[in-house]
């Protein structure tokens, strides 16, 4: 097991930057997932950790030892590649045992260790087969076995599940999680699949265009995205964004003059343009065009996913999706959408998150109780 320290690492391909000044610490035994769109530099970062790519500037240290100039085979990392990268002419046993053969481990011990790893991965019956005689899932397992057999300090995964079909992907995801629970090997897992990222990560890193957008637990990153990019990237259907303007008292006013959250105050200058972000699952439809505190919704298409309903439409010209539990009765006639203030995300013009003032004071309601419990207004 090992820790990784990445200090202001840059990578240039010619003059094009792929990674631009990245700092990251991976704790011993943790499972870190790097999530980002295709081309954002995830693989490049992983390959620099592995030693397959030179580091243009900065330092990478494994267990406190700077490894910039250390050969890939001597860094104590094992890697699982997206397309498995098995040796085509070797049997499963030879594939798994190759690192041990290179290291000069005696044949008997090698067979023993390969056998143990194969048993762990359910590959016991396939040891004599060639990769071409295996299914995608089995190849994936062999690739895992090849990484595990050396008992490395660090596992590096580069989108290892993206070539599998949906069902296998879920199964392998669970298996990777189980293996990590058992082996506790420090793992860095690169993916562009948010579900994989959310489910596997202890620590989630969202990358965009060669820099880190946010680091945190999956829950933190999902509930409190630091930027519009992160907010938009996580969640399905993605977060809805509505243009808004700050009024003189710091409240967000939506297009059409709607002010659904009068108690939510931002410390921003009047007339600042922001975007209000609302997750589809945080929205509840209410009957009636101008229900109290609701935003008028123009429904368009209703999708029934079986487990969930997705209701697509517009609010003041912006596309909005609402996710509802299955079998929610859909109100006929005009509808509005409601969201608790705690579900409101706000982003500035440059994409940074804007926080509302710490504890908004609920305004007294003329009749009945406040629509939301005061505690739900807290942001901590």
């Amino acid at each position, binding site marked *: 097991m090992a820790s990784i320290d990445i200090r202001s690492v840059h990578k240039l391909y010619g003059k094009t930057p792929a990674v631009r000044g990245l700092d990251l610490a991976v704790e011993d035994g943790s499972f870190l997932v790097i999530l980002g769109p295709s081309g954002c530099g995830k693989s490049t970062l992983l390959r620099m950790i592995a030693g397959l790519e030179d580091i243009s500037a900065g330092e990478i240290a494994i267990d406190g030892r700077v490894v910039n100039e250390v050969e890939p*085979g001597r860094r104590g990392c*094992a890697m699982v*590649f997206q397309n498995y*990268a098995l040796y085509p002419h070797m049997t499963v046993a030879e594939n798994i045992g190759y690192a041990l053969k290179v290291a000069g481990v005696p044949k008997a011990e090698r067979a023993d260790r390969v056998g143990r790893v194969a048993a762990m991965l359910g590959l016991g019956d396939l040891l004599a087969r060639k990769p071409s005689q295996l299914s995608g899932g089995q190849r994936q397992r062999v690739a895992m076995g090849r990484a595990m057999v050396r008992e490395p300090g660090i596992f590096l995964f580069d989108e290892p599940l993206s070539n599998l079909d949906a069902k296998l992907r879920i199964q392998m995801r669970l298996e990777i999680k189980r293996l990590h629970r058992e082996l506790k090997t420090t793992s860095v897992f690169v993916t562009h699949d948010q579900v994989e990222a959310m489910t596997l990560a202890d620590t989630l890193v969202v990358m965009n265009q060669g820099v880190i957008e946010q680091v945190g637990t999956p829950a933190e990153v999902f509930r409190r995205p630091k930027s519009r990019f992160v907010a938009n990237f996580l969640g399905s259907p993605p977060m809805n964004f509505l243009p808004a303007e700050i009024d003189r008292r710091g409240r967000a006013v939506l297009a059409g003059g709607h002010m659904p959250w009068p108690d939510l105050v931002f410390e921003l200058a009047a007339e600042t343009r922001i975007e209000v972000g609302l997750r589809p699952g945080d929205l509840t439809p209410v009957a009636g065009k101008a229900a109290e505190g609701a935003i008028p919704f123009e429904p368009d298409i209703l999708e029934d996913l079986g487990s969930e309903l997705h209701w697509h439409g517009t609010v003041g010209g912006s596309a909005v999706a609402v996710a509802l539990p299955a079998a929610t009765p859909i109100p006929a006639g005009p509808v509005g959408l409601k969201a608790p203030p705690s579900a409101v995300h706000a982003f500035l013009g440059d994409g940074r998150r804007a926080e509302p003032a710490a504890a908004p004071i609920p305004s007294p309601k003329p009749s009945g109780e406040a629509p939301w419990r005061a505690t739900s207004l807290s942001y901590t």
Partner: protein
Amino acid sequence: MTNRASAGRIAAHVVMIGLSFLAIFPVYWMIQTSFRAENEIFSGGLFPAVPTLKNYTDVLAAMPMLRILGNTVVMAGATTLAQVATGLLAAWALVRWRFPGGALARSLIALSWLVPFQVVMIPNYVLASKLGLLDTVTGLVIPNAAAAFSVLVLYNAMRGFPREVIEAARMDGAGNFRILAEVVLPNLSAPLASVSILCFISAWNDYFWPLLLIRRMENSVVQIGLQFFMTQEGNDWGPLMAAATLASLPILALYLVLQRQVVDSFMKSGIR
């Protein structure tokens, strides 16, 4: 299938059969002439009236034909081994490392393919004579020990080899020679067979360089041996055809054994 389509296929086959005859006939004529007695050489007919082995005994009497064949096998074999070895190492270097001037090196190698033999034959000859390689089989092999053709074919084959597999081997701790020998090479059998076969055949058929370098019959190779029967007083057709038959037998045997690979290698290298 419509009548028209089948008519087209028949026509195509007729043409192909005709072309096959064109290709096979000279070979057949060579073989049957080699069995004709001297007085029968110019008489017509598809078969020798009285087949005789006299031309063959004449050839074996006139020159150490077995030794010459042996020389040729050694020369072509050594040339092939050398070209494959240098080609593998050069191609591996070009594929494995990106280095300044790598692309330039590759273009220069490709360019060297276009340099005609006539341009380098005098310098090579002078060098060979200074090194004392005149009239030796070694002298025949060394100038052909590296060839652009094998470098480029193997380069293309290796470039098609998945980069991740090489990287996986690096992660597994294997050094560069080990990766070449244990990971890349075993997956390169088809291009290696192509290069070897084409290289062997072209070395076997080489004429000019041995003609320049070789003085004595016992150091000679078959293509030079054939020349012995072409004299100013006219060609000695019977023994010439017998020697030519002997010269082509090993290649013919190679072809029969590796038929599939030979055809493949010609198709793949774009030479037909």
